[in-house]
């Protein structure tokens, strides 16, 4: 069925089929503007005993329909289309991460160059990268073959060689895949889909080596020259194969694909799309994070070398339920406890963490339990962001021309493009951030984990709507951006943070904040946090005068004057310096954590513990 013209789209139903919950939202044109009006959810039904994803979709759509007073599902359990007489919707679109999402293996010749580009293409398409095979990954060929045999990815992306460059090394990679005879995750009824996006001169040889073993697609080289990536064709091929092979083998997805009016996208791919759209339209640098039960996704869009660079990473075992034990294991208990302002018994905590791991759907009932989970989340986010910054680099292997003037500011290829001082907007989503009882807690978790510098706006995705809007952007970008701006984001406020360090208690910066007819001014001692309430519709003129060597965005020691936005939390002045340092002594650290928690009014009932 052809899509209605954009001007005729009045009612849009969008779902995101997650591993545990299927979330449906209704977007309607209200007074000429697109608004998200109703939402509903139901358990995802890919597992036994139901084993049909569309049952969860129908349940979620039915709930939305009941709330909206607009039936969306008919008596036969079919979505009603087009919208007519207060019934049905004009289009239905969906994303999916159910059944473990899209799992890929990528290969390249040099780990830091073509293999890194292949990984970026796979991650950008919304995949989880299970492993990266490269000539220099320090494994011997038989170990690489063994690894390929053990993994059961949904598909493989092969890169390697610039066009006209090495053929031998690329073919060698194919010769590792062929004897491994990789088996796809959903059984042996079809051959493993493999995308070759490497040196075009090597393509016929690769095809010869892999013939009769895999289902090979050849697309344009994703690194045609060292100085440039061309990830689009590989990414499109991944999406096509995702629909053709992965989704088609998941229970009920054949029906879902037929229902949807636009191709179903992997959830993280859709989130990446909407963030790129927003960064492009507003001309800003954005970091987005989605912390789930098993994994944490970090997205960034930064201006680098005159172009907008998008990166996504998935920290596969950093999450708040299935992977909570891994977070504690990777970070270590002392690192987690440094965020906890009360005394806690470590042995008891360890058992609690494991109990959450084996019963992942439980929620904190007590304040003590909440404080601990939020402490764990800071470390999960911190580690995920660290991994992201290490991955999101300028292209490695590029020859650089330097002049004498660059002598003292030389940066090698491979420097991170993520610069916290240039970060304009930090967007939070995922249970522990979105469902925190107080917005102050969400803001504090973001600041402590990401350590933004200078002036950064903080926001959260109100109901994890970004995936829906990402897929909507494919069909109707204007509607997607309108809903994102009006209904998706809840602005928490603005953080002004000082980079650099001085002695505790010494002046870090002075501030003057003017909003409406009010004025606040004072001095921020190093190590302090302060909250100035500034409402969601308010803006303020701020003037910050940093101490020598301290940078708040205008350069070390240079004063900053600019307008900032308020939010549900307000304006947060952070004079703790960067990188954040907490006392090593547990009791001293507890006192500091307590002071910060009170400064941001995180836990009003803290005294009761």
């Amino acid at each position, binding site marked *: 069925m052809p899509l209605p013209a954009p001007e005729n789209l009045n009612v849009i139903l969008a779902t995101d089929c997650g*591993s545990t919950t299927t979330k449906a939202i209704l977007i309607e044109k209200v007074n000429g503007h697109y608004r998200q009006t109703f939402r509903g*959810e*139901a*358990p995802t039904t*890919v597992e*036994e*005993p139901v084993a049909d994803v569309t049952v969860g979709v129908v349940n979620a759509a039915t*709930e939305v329909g009941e709330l909206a007073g607009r039936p969306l599902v008919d008596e036969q359990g079919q979505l009603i289309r087009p919208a007519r007489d207060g019934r049905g919707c004009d289009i239905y679109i969906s994303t999916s991460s*159910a*059944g*473990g999402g899209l799992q890929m293996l990528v290969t390249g010749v040099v780990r830091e160059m073509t293999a890194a580009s292949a990984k970026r293409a796979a991650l950008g398409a919304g995949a989880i990268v299970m492993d990266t095979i490269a000539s220099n990954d320090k494994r011997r*060929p*038989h170990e690489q*073959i*063994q690894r390929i045999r053990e993994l059961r990815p949904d598909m493989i992306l092969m890169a390697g060689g610039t066009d006209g460059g090495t053929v*031998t090394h690329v*073919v*060698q990679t194919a*010769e*590792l895949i*062929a*004897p*491994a005879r990789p*088996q796809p995750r959903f059984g*042996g009824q079809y051959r493993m889909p493999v995308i070759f996006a490497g040196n075009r001169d090597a393509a016929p*040889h690769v095809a010869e080596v892999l013939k009769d073993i895999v289902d090979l697609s050849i697309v344009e080289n994703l690194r045609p020259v060292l100085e440039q990536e061309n990830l689009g064709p590989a990414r499109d091929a991944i999406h096509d194969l995702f629909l053709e092979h992965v989704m088609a083998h998941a229970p009920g997805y054949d029906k879902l694909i037929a229902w949807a009016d636009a191709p179903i996208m992997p959830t993280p791919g859709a989130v990446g799309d909407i963030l790129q759209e927003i960064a492009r339209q507003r001309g800003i640098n954005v970091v987005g994070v989605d912390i789930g039960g*098993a994994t944490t996704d970090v997205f960034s869009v930064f201006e680098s070398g005159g172009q907008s660079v998008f990166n996504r990473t998935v920290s596969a*075992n950093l999450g708040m339920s*299935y*992977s909570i*034990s*891994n977070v*504690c*294991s*990777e970070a270590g208990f002392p690192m987690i406890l440094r965020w906890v302002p009360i005394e806690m018994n470590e*042995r*008891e905590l*360890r*058992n*609690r*963490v*494991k*109990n959450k*791991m*084996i*019963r*992942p*759907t*439980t*929620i*904190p*009932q*007590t*304040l003590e*339990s*909440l404080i601990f989970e939020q402490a764990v989340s800071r470390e999960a986010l911190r580690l995920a962001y660290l991994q992201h910054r290490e991955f999101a680099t300028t292209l490695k292997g590029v020859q650089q021309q330097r002049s004498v003037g660059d002598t003292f500011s030389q940066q090698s290829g491979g420097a991170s493009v993520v610069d916290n001082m240039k970060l304009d907007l930090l967007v939070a989503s995922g249970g522990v951030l979105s*469902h925190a*009882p107080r917005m102050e807690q969400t803001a504090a978790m973001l600041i402590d984990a990401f350590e933004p510098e200078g002036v950064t706006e903080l926001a959260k995705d109100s109901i994890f709507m970004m995936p829906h809007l990402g897929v909507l952007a494919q069909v109707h970008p204007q509607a997607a951006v309108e809903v994102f701006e009006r209904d998706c984001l809840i602005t928490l406020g603005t953080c002004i943070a000082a980079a650099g360090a001085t002695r505790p208690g010494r002046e870090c910066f002075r501030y003057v904040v003017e909003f409406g007819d009010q004025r606040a001014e004072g001095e921020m001692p190093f190590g302090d946090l302060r909250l100035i309430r500034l409402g969601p519709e308010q803006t303020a003129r701020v003037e910050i005068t940093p101490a020598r060597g301290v940078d708040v965005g205008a350069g070390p020691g240079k004063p900053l004057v600019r307008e900032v936005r308020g939010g549900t939390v307000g304006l947060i002045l952070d004079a703790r310096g960067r990188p954040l340092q907490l006392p090593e002594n547990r009791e001293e650290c507890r006192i500091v954590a307590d002071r910060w928690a009170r400064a941001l009014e995180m*836990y009003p*009932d803290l005294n009761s513990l």
Partner: protein
Amino acid sequence: MAHAYTPGLLVTPRMRHRVRRVLPIAGDVLVEQGAAVGSQDVVARTYMPGDVTPINLANQLAMPPGELAGVLLKQPGEAIQKGEPLARTKGLFGWFQSEFKSPASGTLESVSSVTGQAMIRSAPLPVQVLAYVDGTVIDVLPGEGVIVEADVAFIQGIFGVGGEAYGPIRCIARSASEDVTPESIPADVRGAVLVGGARIHHSAIQKAVELGAAAIVGGGIDDQDLKTVLGYDLGVAITGSEKLGVTIIITEGFGDIAMADRTFELLRSHDGARVSVNGSTQIRAGVQRPEIVIPLADEAASGDVQGAHGGGVLQVGSPVRMIRDPYFGILGTVAALPHEPQMLGSGSRARVLEVTCRDGRRVTVPRANVEIVGA
């Protein structure tokens, strides 16, 4: 969401159970439909392609890859033994020949004229699948495996480590609240599935391994003990491939916690019975819990086939277990299911339920923090 499904562990004295036993890759099924099988009978067998030894022959012989075909002493498809010459260069007038001897036994699979890489595939590795439970083959999946059906008592645990194991139940605790310590394990437990009451201590696991027990089942385990047993801190609950010498299954959770009476009594009532256990746990999409499967030899009716999953819809009177602090592990029955979300101590609003605990207390907990007890 008023009738949302609430999880639970399946503990039932009788059910008709089906297990799907399939090979990882296509192979031969060795039994026929209708055959009676024992738990340790082999029902399907196959051979995995052997390991591959790659050799860059062109580099070894210092010659262009395109010329390798002329110096091979074995052709692709031919068998070769370790130490046997694989290729020999012609040299100069028969002098200065270079020879390369195979570093592995197997079959020469390929030699690339582009990269100079040769692949030697070793002998296929046999893989076999056991029936797992005493029962009847009710379906043969050609080339894949079988489905075995049996009437069983079935107990799902919450977490386990180690794979499939078999043996007679040996109850070593007098009550469900008795810890499993080295002192509680007698000397003659080789091959047995030990059933204790509450927390399994690390030293008890050590003793069970020393004495050759097949498995050990208890109410709980301390995180630190698990770490000591495994030798590492478990990050995600995906287990089953550990080689500890014993399979461990806990039925309730981590910490000092007694086995639910119902579970303990069911296991005790089958003391001496030969059972199949599996510690494999996967808490992700497609959740898999550890299990103890007890075949029932009598002829009583077991009804229709039942899926191996517990849980159901919460109702007033449903027996539940609270699975999160501050009431972790406490059993009770649902006293009320208020419709409106309520404010929790954490400050969040959530759907709750009221539970009358066994000691008579009435407490309010989030609905997400209980599981239905029993079948």
